């Protein structure tokens, strides 16, 4: 079903622009057109249908559901909801406070917030279409595991000590207050669902289209211009230092998952080991300074630094683990 995009790219690159299929440049342009057109069509169609389904899911309901759950289940649910619940990253502060004031432990809240940028429907969709379902499954499992273990770790070190004082008070008040009864669920008509889905599609597409161009453009450049075998020759053995280097390189680079996945595809195709690629990409997506600075409003520096260090460490471990695994496969 995806051949139509290759045919479209054949026509545009080789016939209309009359580039030679044998030249590096022609090859790169072909790759770019095929991937961008495929991703755009998939995005629009899938975002719309997924939004129709989850129109009634929102952070308020997730909070009501998570409040009062025991910790073991809480981390898993927090991380799972983080993956499927839509919310703009600029809402992380109010979401954090909303969860906290309902008495939800900091660790569960952080499981939600850490998983959220790593996994979302757009990321899953792109991974499936570019790298196949096995890699997608791996990515989802790793992303959720980082969120779950990260949350459990923060509760284990009693991270709530290092909240800003008003947030700490809200947490204590929430834990002592009787559990509020959940508000009744409003039924949405199809028209309302459609309206939500249309808004979502326009909003998400408007936000990510340029990331697709940047990501695929970089991917195409790698594809066409980095000499065959270069990456494989220098980094292909998964040298131990290449993983922390990839994580550090990912910090100043900030992208959302949509932009980074096409780059992942090219890196893997060019022979970069899977662990190094995962480490680089997760660091690019989840460890971004501007968003961390926002969390300063609710966390003291100490907690902020702990969370940041924890993320970097876990991405490095993920990288080593997968590079190690692939040697045995």
């Amino acid at each position, binding site marked *: 079903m995806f051949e139509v995009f290759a045919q479209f790219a054949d026509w545009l690159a080789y016939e209309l622009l009359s580039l030679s299929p044998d030249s590096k440049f022609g090859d790169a342009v072909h790759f770019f057109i095929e991937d961008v057109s495929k991703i755009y069509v998939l995005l629009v169609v899938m975002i719309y249908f997924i939004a129709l389904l989850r129109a009634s899911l929102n952070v308020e309901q997730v909070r009501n559901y998570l409040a009062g759950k025991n910790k073991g289940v809480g981390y898993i649910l927090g991380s799972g909801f983080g993956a499927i619940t839509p919310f703009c990253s600029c*809402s992380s502060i109010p979401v954090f406070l909303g969860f906290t004031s309902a008495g939800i432990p900091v660790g569960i809240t952080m499981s939600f917030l850490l998983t959220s940028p790593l996994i979302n429907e757009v990321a899953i969709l792109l991974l499936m279409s570019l790298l196949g379902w096995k890699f997608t499954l791996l990515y989802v499992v790793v992303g959720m595991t980082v969120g779950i273990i990260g949350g459990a770790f923060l509760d284990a070190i009693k991270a709530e000590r290092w909240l*800003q004082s008003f947030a700490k008070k809200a947490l204590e008040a929430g834990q002592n207050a009787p559990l509020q009864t959940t508000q009744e669920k409003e039924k949405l008509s199809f028209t309302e669902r459609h309206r939500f889905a249309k808004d979502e599609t326009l909003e998400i597409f408007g936000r990510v289209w340029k990331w697709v161009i940047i990501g695929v453009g970089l991917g195409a450049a790698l594809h066409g211009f980095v000499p065959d075998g270069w990456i494989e020759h220098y980094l292909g053995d998964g040298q131990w230092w290449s993983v922390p280097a990839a994580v550090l390189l990912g910090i100043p680079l900030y992208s959302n998952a949509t932009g980074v996945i096409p780059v992942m595809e090219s890196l893997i195709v060019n022979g970069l080991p899977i662990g190094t690629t995962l480490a680089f990409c997760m660091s690019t997506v989840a460890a971004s300074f501007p968003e961390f600075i926002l969390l300063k409003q609710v966390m003291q520096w100490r907690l902020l630094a702990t969370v940041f260090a924890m993320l970097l460490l876990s991405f490095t471990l993920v990288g080593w683990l997968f590079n190690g695994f692939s040697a045995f496969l």
Partner: protein
Amino acid sequence: MKQIKVLGNGCTKCQKTAELIERIASEQGVEVHVSKETDAQTFLQYGVMSTPAVVIDEQLKHSGSIPHTDQVKEWLTA
């Protein structure tokens, strides 16, 4: 005069929400005072979990997205 607060961390959506309300108010000749609230404690005070959120005369009207034009008109004429 209606006191309108737009709650949010200063992202573009919050900016657009405030502009939208000001524009519709001036089109309809309704006197409003729109202020942008970025303080975390304000979110807590109104129980807002998704931004941008709109508070009119101390009542939470909307949260989680840029409101639609007809919604804004309804609030302003109410």
